[in-house]
């Protein structure tokens, strides 16, 4: 049996522990700016929820014509994480921690994100672009996380995962790679593709996959997560992750200023955004609460899926399913505002989150033994 022992003294050097996180935050912000310059939609250089929604559209799971495109960024993140995990011998097939619940929570997170119009990552990119609606979203996001943390402190968890075969861990990254290869070899005609609207605005595929690979690899290495930032700051008084969160905002803001794209902070006239404050707040509350129960933001789920975690792969599939529901049943907002169906869905999502939180904190029942 191989035995390696490492001795780590007490005490800390903050920068020594967190420089990689700050670098990841900078790179994520820079990637968003560059991809935006190369053609991705406004304040949407890099958005996990939006891109998964576009993939759902490309696969014909919904028929909203403006948001259909097989986004290479998503493939890049998962494969970047996979390659980094393989290089660092961290790749492991594992899963079996409440997959059906995770699928459902993933769907709820996506529904909330599409009422707000963006995942946590796009939220900070929107703030850096001067969109004050996203600040309202941020307040809701933090509120949702804080509610989730109450249950985490009471003992909430989704149960343990188990070792699975490497093939189980490779199934999801492999499927993404296969579909991506079908795309770049010209067989993408199979998939739907927007001719107008956000889905038609796209950076060249090679730039998109490269940015995804870089972000995925660095995020795997640094454990970058938008939800973990607030969580760790509140629960453990650790500020590394939340500093990375801030770094994204600062990078995007400075980048927009340098590129003379910044037109000041305002609520109105923001790209792919609306000003229904209450629903921006509640939509992101669902995202924050759901993500903290899932143990990570949508980006983190992609990275974990790349490491061989099939629970996270199932969560991503749940998010894609949630995107399909959102656009098939008019739950998703648009630049014109949120929808009555969206309001109803957010309220139902909050009730489900409360029920899941209560049951998995206080009445989990017996789980299988090791």
């Amino acid at each position, binding site marked *: *049996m*191989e*035995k*390696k*022992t*490492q*001795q*780590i*003294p*007490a*005490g*800390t050097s903050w920068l020594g*522990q967190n420089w990689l996180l700050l670098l990841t935050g900078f790179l994520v912000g820079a990637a968003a700016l560059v991809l935006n310059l190369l053609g991705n939609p406004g304040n949407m250089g890099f958005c996990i929820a939006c891109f998964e929604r576009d993939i759902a559209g490309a696969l014909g799971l919904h028929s909203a014509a403006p948001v259909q495109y097989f986004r290479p960024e998503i493939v890049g993140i998962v494969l970047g994480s996979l390659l980094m995990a393989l290089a*660092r011998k*961290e790749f*492991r097939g594992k899963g079996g*921690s409440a997959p059906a619940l995770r699928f459902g929570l993933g769907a709820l997170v996506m529904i909330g994100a599409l009422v707000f119009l963006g995942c946590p990552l796009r939220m900070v990119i929107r703030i850096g672009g001067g969109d004050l609606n996203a600040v309202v979203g941020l307040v809701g996001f933090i509120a949702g996380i804080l509610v989730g943390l109450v249950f*985490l*402190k009471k003992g909430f*968890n989704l149960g*343990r*995962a*188990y*070792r699975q075969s490497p093939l189980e861990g490779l199934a999801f990254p492999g499927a993404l790679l296969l579909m991506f290869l079908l795309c770049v070899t010209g067989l993408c005609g199979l998939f739907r593709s927007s001719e107008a609207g956000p889905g038609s605005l796209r950076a060249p595929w090679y730039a998109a996959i490269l940015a995804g690979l870089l972000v995925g690899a660095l995020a795997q290495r640094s*454990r970058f997560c938008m939800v*973990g930032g607030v*969580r*760790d700051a509140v*629960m*453990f*008084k*650790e500020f590394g992750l939340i500093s990375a969160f801030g770094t994204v905002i600062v990078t995007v803001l400075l980048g927009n200023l340098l590129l003379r794209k910044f037109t000041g902070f305002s609520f109105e006239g923001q790209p792919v955004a609306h000003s229904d404050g209450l629903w921006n707040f509640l939509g992101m509350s669902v995202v924050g609460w759901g993500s903290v129960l899932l*143990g990570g933001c949508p980006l983190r789920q992609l990275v*974990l899926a790349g490491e061989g*975690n099939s629970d996270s792969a199932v969560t991503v599939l749940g998010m894609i399913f949630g995107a399909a529901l959102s656009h098939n049943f008019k739950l998703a907002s648009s630049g014109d505002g949120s929808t009555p169906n969206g309001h109803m869905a957010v309220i139902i999502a909050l009730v489900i989150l409360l029920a899941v939180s209560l049951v998995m904190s206080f009445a989990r029942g017996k789980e299988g033994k*090791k």
Partner: protein
Amino acid sequence: MIDATGYSCPTPVLMVQKEVKAKAPKTLEVLVDNRCAVENVTRFARNSGYAVRVEEREEDFLLTLER
């Protein structure tokens, strides 16, 4: 000893935090099965004044916290 194998973060850190708050032990052994948990538990332990010894086993990591 805390067995946190199978759990993903933040659960392992929460388990350690609970034990440290309740009993403030001089030494504490924690078993985890992924690098992320090793890093997070180690960071929490160091910030709480513990030195950490990480022993890599075949599938798992045994962390020994001491102060």
